[in-house]
């Protein structure tokens, strides 16, 4: 039971860190630049919000399978299977939680006071330096909301991960799937414990986010 919990926490942490790194430039691009295919990109990012998780998981499975594009590359690089592995679940989580990272950041970047950017530029800051010294500190709250939502959302992932991970005990069996299996087996005590822990983590993460930025949460409902 604790093994499953540990895998869930690890998956959520890895996904959060990676998505913050991917989300910042992506959200910045969407907030500040006009380019061809922008609307399409926004649709693709929002898609996991409405797509049945099993559908997402199915396509990620095709992608990560030994014959799949990503799976083949992974096999060549690391001599290991990407499907039914922790790394494969990370791929699914990244896609699944992408909108939860991008949306709050997008909101934060769009709400950035214009003069702050102008000030930064006139003080000679540009590109990555401007991002690091003005944009990121100015959108700390959006980043925090993004991190909290991604973490909590990944903890609760089920369908997509089951497709790609396959619930291998000690490797890809995460807490939410373990809970389902405990109930199926009639193991009420472990089920109750695990459910309580998952509830606790979600409440903890959300209360951290809410305490730091109550205003931000009100208008971020991805």
């Amino acid at each position, binding site marked *: 039971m604790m093994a499953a919990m540990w895998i869930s926490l690890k998956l959520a942490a890895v996904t959060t860190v990676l998505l913050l790194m991917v989300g910042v430039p992506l959200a910045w691009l969407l907030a500040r630049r006009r380019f061809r295919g922008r609307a399409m990109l926004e649709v693709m990012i929002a898609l996991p919000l409405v797509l049945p998780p099993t559908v997402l998981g199915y396509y990620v499975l095709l992608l990560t399978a030994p014959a799949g594009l990503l799976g083949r590359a992974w096999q060549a690089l690391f001599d290991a299977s990407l499907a039914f592995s922790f790394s494969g679940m990370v791929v699914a989580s990244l896609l699944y939680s992408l909108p939860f990272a991008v949306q709050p950041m997008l909101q934060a970047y769009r709400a950035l006071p214009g003069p702050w950017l102008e*000030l930064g530029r*006139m003080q000679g800051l540009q590109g990555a330096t401007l991002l690091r*010294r003005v944009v990121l*500190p100015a959108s*700390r709250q959006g980043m925090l909301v993004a991190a909290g939502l991604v973490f909590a959302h990944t903890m609760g992932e089920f369908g997509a991960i089951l497709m790609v991970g396959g619930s291998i005990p000690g490797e890809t069996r995460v807490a939410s799937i373990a809970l389902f299996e405990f109930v199926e087996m009639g193991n009420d005590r472990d089920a109750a414990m695990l459910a309580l822990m998952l509830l606790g983590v979600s409440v903890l993460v959300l209360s951290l986010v809410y305490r730091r930025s109550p205003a931000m949460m009100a208008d971020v409902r991805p």
Partner: protein
Amino acid sequence: MNELRMHAHGGENGLRLEATACFDNGIVLITGDNGAGKTTLLRALAGLHPARGLIRVGTETWLDTDRGVCMPPERRRVGFVWAETVLLPWLDVAANIRLGAERESTAWLGEVCMAFEVDELLTRVPASLSRGEAQRVMLARAFYRRPALLLLDEPLSAQAPAVRARLRAVLAAMRERLGVPLILVSHDPDDASIADWRWHMRNGRLIHESADGAALGKTTCGETAWKQG
């Protein structure tokens, strides 16, 4: 010699901005009604507002539409003071003043902060400053980075009368030390005392004005703009 021959479309009110002027390194005072285009002119000079034509400051060409030159704001080296407070709230006063100019010496920082009477505020955060204090911090920031051009939008408006008179002299003295042009937008008639030139903006047009307020009309470079004294 600094040269300006540019036009731009104003912001919301659809104003057409037109400005032609030559001026040496000194203080230019710009007056004019609200909405006459004063702030837009400053923003165009800083590169924040799109403009066409020619802008030369010192030996540098910042804008030359005919030759496809348009330097971005980050390379123009302007010291800009907004009419409203623009300070980064997560940095203390010292870090706000040094933003992007960290390589300047601490001696210079002390000098600038002393001059603009912000030396006691260095460890404070912007949220704790009065409007007048925030304005002085913005002034210190504008001068600290040793800009090629100073653009100040009503920079003394929030100061008490006694402080204002003092800071007016400081502005003139510090500008002299940097040896760069300073363009000052103001509604305060007393600010004329430190001005070397006076421009008036009317409906987006820059008009060079004589001492008694009679308009000389649009002058082109080569003709002498009126110089006070």
